[in-house]
């Protein structure tokens, strides 16, 4: 295990991987810092280009972007009160008031260091938990996989902000989008309406770029006139003394653990992790009244948790092929594009890939820390890039990137249609995370269920007689019923 990690780290210091890691971290921080651009958007945009790269280089680049994007969001959250990424929403509550009161450097310093430590804690659990969990997951049969996918879908819908009903709707919508095309099990074309172009189904890439990039651009255009509340930039007090960090030690560790745990749960990512950690920190704080008014504990809790969830969310991806968050779903898409099947067998079939991913998670976190501490001033300037210059460039990348994937314009049209769908869903406040997870997981769920039924002689009974699948099913039902019951109870009052 340790040899694999050391090999992975050594590999990362070869010229090309190092270049992609630094580039990915920088790009991630940059899009994280620019309000309106997200890590999901950047990863979706970069995906077609990775098709031309060595698979390991592609993964190094994408995981580095992931680390950078989750961290970069704190800059605009602190200095503009606009979360650069959804994961940085909680940072706005205390980061901005602290910056406004004349301490932007301290707010950023707290956030950056907490992100770094949170990232280390998340990485530690990724490294230690992944191998034993993968060994356990190898023993899973089709029914266990089917119920686990079901659980991931229900979990992300349950965690959707706003309405669970909308989360479930979004997830099932993603599932239906994955269905047209050739049914691999029976060799039968379905839901294609006779269109030859649909025989291969909707490819992941145009759909993801449409929903996450084009849809986001349309939303950004709607709010292009939005004025930002700037604070004067001074970066004094970024470095806290050891004594000051000692005061934050328990909060830091607790929030990192919460973030890691939330990350490990299939389907839930950094934004939920930071919300739960922030709420927990507020509950246990002796100065809870300071939360929302520039509390140091608030910044530390939110930022350590969202970075810890990166390592956590890579655990189900590596060990079971189940995405821990939306970005992980995109990473699965990247692996599939490179003909790599994520899951427990990855440790056997491609250990170099697994340990490189684990190593990138660690090293890019260190690079992120160095980059953000040393270059915070120029990075902060990126927040003020006018959208009228950024958005046309991204649109051209979307069109050229999607076309490059298959050299056909049909995919570009698919991207535009799904951009519109993403925009409309966003207007109706329907979350896009479950859509993405449903889109990627539905084929896995269907294949596993049908394989299971063939093995069991057409019997559904093993779903409840096998302990693991019964547990997953029970958890799914619990997560499904409880929020719906609460939602119904609230609305009936």
């Amino acid at each position, binding site marked *: 295990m340790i040899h694999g990690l050391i090999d992975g780290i050594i590999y990362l210091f070869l010229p090309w991987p190092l270049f992609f890691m630094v580039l990915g971290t920088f790009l991630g921080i940059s899009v994280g810092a620019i309000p309106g651009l997200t890590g999901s958007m950047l990863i979706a945009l970069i995906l077609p280009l990775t098709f031309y790269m060595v698979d390991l280089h592609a993964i190094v680049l994408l995981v580095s972007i992931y680390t950078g994007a989750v961290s970069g969001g704190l800059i605009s959250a602190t200095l503009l009160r606009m979360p650069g990424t959804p994961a940085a929403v909680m940072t706005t509550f205390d980061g901005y008031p602290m910056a406004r009161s004349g301490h932007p450097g301290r707010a950023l310093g707290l956030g950056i260091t907490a992100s770094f430590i949170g990232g280390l804690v998340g990485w530690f659990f990724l490294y230690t938990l992944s191998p034993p969990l993968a060994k356990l997951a190898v023993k899973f049969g089709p029914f266990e996989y089917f119920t686990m996918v079901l659980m991931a879908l229900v979990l992300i819908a349950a965690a959707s902000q706003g309405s669970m*009903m909308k989360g479930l709707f979004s997830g099932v919508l993603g599932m239906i989008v994955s269905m047209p095309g050739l049914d691999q099990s029976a060799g039968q074309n379905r839901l294609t309406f006779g269109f030859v172009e649909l025989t291969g189904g909707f490819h992941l890439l145009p759909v993801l770029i449409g929903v996450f990039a084009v849809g986001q651009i349309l939303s950004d255009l709607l709010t292009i006139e939005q004025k930002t509340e700037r604070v004067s930039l001074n970066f004094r007090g970024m470095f806290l003394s050891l004594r000051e960090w000692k005061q934050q030690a328990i909060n830091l560790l607790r929030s990192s653990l919460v973030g890691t745990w939330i990350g490990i749960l299939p389907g839930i990512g950094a934004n939920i992790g930071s919300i739960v950690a922030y709420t927990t920190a507020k509950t246990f704080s002796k100065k809870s009244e300071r939360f929302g008014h520039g509390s140091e504990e608030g910044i530390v809790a939110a930022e350590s948790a969202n970075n810890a969830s990166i390592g956590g969310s890579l655990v189900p991806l590596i060990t079971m092929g189940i995405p821990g968050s939306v970005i992980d779903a995109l990473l699965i898409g990247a692996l599939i594009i490179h003909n790599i099947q994520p899951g427990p067998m990855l440790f056997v079939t491609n250990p170099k890939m697994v340990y490189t991913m684990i190593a990138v998670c660690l090293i890019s976190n260190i690079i992120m820390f160095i980059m953000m501490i040393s270059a915070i001033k120029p990075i902060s300037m990126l927040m003020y890039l006018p959208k009228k210059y950024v958005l*046309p460039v991204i649109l051209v990348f979307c069109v050229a990137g999607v076309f490059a994937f298959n050299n056909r314009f049909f995919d570009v049209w698919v991207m535009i249609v799904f951009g*519109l769908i993403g925009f409309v869903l966003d207007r109706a406040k329907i979350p896009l995370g479950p859509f993405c997870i449903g889109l990627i997981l539905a084929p896995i769920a269907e294949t596993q269920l049908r394989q299971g039924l063939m093995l069991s002689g057409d019997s559904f009974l093993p779903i409840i007689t096998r302990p693991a699948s019964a547990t997953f099913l029970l958890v799914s039902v619990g997560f499904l019923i409880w929020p719906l019951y609460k939602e119904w109870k609230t609305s009936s009052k």
Partner: protein
Amino acid sequence: MFSNHPNQAMSEKLIPLWEIGVGIVTIAVCILLYWDSLNLPDPVFDPLGSVMVPRATCVILGLFASAIIFKGMRAINQKADNGPTKESPLNYSLRPGLAVGILGLTATYVLVLSTRLVRFSELTFVFVILSGMWMGRFKIKAMPVLLILALIMGYGGQYVFKEVFFVDLP
């Protein structure tokens, strides 16, 4: 500091209408997909076959869509019962026309590209300038930066995609 902009209030009020719209379109799509699935043969190798999962998904999606329509309608009725509410103000105006316009411009860009009558470089050059100017309300001071970006994206993009990635761009 903030001005109560009527566009924001309008945007919040529109959510139930968007919900109802999404729900209706989804139900229509579900009916279409279910109807198409009727042409599929019965299962042979397993009890589900190619047909059962899409059908079940259509039904479930239709149910959720109905619930969303119901939610939207209830929100509209509640607002009507409660009378006018105080909306949260924002300091900017929304530009729905711009969003629709840029989508149309992008669709036109793709349409012209797909005819292969104009090269990617020239068309992209025009697209970047046009869309950027539109986003900046056609203020001429944005032009120099947009020109540079258009050159990079058009001619630079043509070179990178064709010569480095070997993409068959028009």
